[in-house]
């Protein structure tokens, strides 16, 4: 099995690397000290197993799992026993190792990983079957940081050349992306493209005039071709 080690502490990475060496059947392909570099790598490479630290600055191990569409098997490594319950929320998590990790416990976890079979195609989904939290969240890349946005908090998305402006209830974000890309990520029942440059959150509509719609304090143009679809989606008296 090939594996990755993700941990912000160099001592922790060195220990897991040594444990892999002692175990004998694992090949450490890469090591990362932060989650964002690891996500970029995981988007382009296939990995069988990740040893993932939970407590990392800015972006936790759980945040990382939620950004991956099909996460591989994951063994969590942590100094905190308190996150164990959260770990059971994810089908891709095989085991939970509390530091300092001993070789017998490490071997046991790796054996579990080898026998592990995924329950569903949506590995990152919380296993309790409740609303999928990751479907309510969107991660945007700004200055090499992945920032989490709660999808329902988005009011409007506006196309601005090679960028899009995402206006949420608290803050605005300018992201290098296209309206088409974000449209694919937003739920159809909540969002509608009303103009070639605008997507709106239907729940944020304050009022509608002939060719515009008021979203909170922003007047958004509605193109003629999109107006009928907008009217269909409203609960008209």
């Amino acid at each position: 099995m090939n594996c990755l080690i993700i941990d912000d502490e160099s001592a922790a990475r060195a220990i897991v690397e040594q444990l892999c060496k002692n175990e004998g059947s694992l090949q450490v392909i890469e090591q990362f000290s932060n989650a964002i570099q690891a996500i970029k790598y995981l988007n382009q490479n296939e990995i069988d197993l990740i040893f993932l630290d939970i407590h990392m600055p800015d972006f936790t191990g759980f945040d990382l799992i939620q950004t991956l569409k099909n996460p591989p098997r994951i063994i969590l490594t942590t100094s905190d026993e308190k996150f164990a319950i959260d770990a059971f929320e994810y089908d891709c998590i095989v085991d939970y190792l509390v530091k300092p990790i001993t070789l017998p416990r490490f071997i046991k976890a790796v054996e579990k990983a080898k026998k592990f079979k995924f329950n569903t195609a949506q590995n990152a989904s919380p296993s309790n079957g409740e609303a999928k939290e990751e479907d309510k969240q969107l991660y945007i890349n700004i200055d090499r940081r992945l920032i989490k946005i709660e999808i329902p908090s988005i009011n409007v998305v506006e196309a601005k050349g090679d960028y899009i402006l995402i206006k949420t209830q608290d803050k605005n974000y300018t992201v290098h992306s296209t309206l088409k890309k974000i449209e694919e990520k937003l739920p159809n029942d909540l969002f509608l493209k009303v103009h070639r440059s605008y997507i709106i959150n239907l729940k944020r509509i304050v009022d509608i005039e002939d060719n515009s719609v008021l979203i909170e304090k922003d007047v958004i143009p509605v193109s003629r071709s999109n107006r009928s679809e907008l009217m269909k989606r409203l609960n008209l008296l």
Partner: protein
Amino acid sequence: MNLEQPNLNYIKELSGGDVDFEQKMLSILKNELPTEIEVYEKNIENQDFKKVAEIVHKIKHKISILGLPKSHEFAVQFENELRNENMQKHESFLKLLKLMSNFLDKV
């Protein structure tokens, strides 16, 4: 907690005689701990509880690597207390850091 003495048992157990690994671990500990102590002291001075808790969290693993389970438990409590803006255990924690630091200077 004061009865415990730092040791290399855990590192040696993992190394299985791999001297390169032992040296690598010692080099990481020797390089990082003094900087972490500085950060700890600076954040204590600034009364920045959140940052103190973060650095205690980071140092915590080194405490267990040096074979100090009771001190590790003490650090866990201290980290939790810091998140509630309580730094009563600061002096004892500082003594622990000095104990670790002196040990690393000698090995």
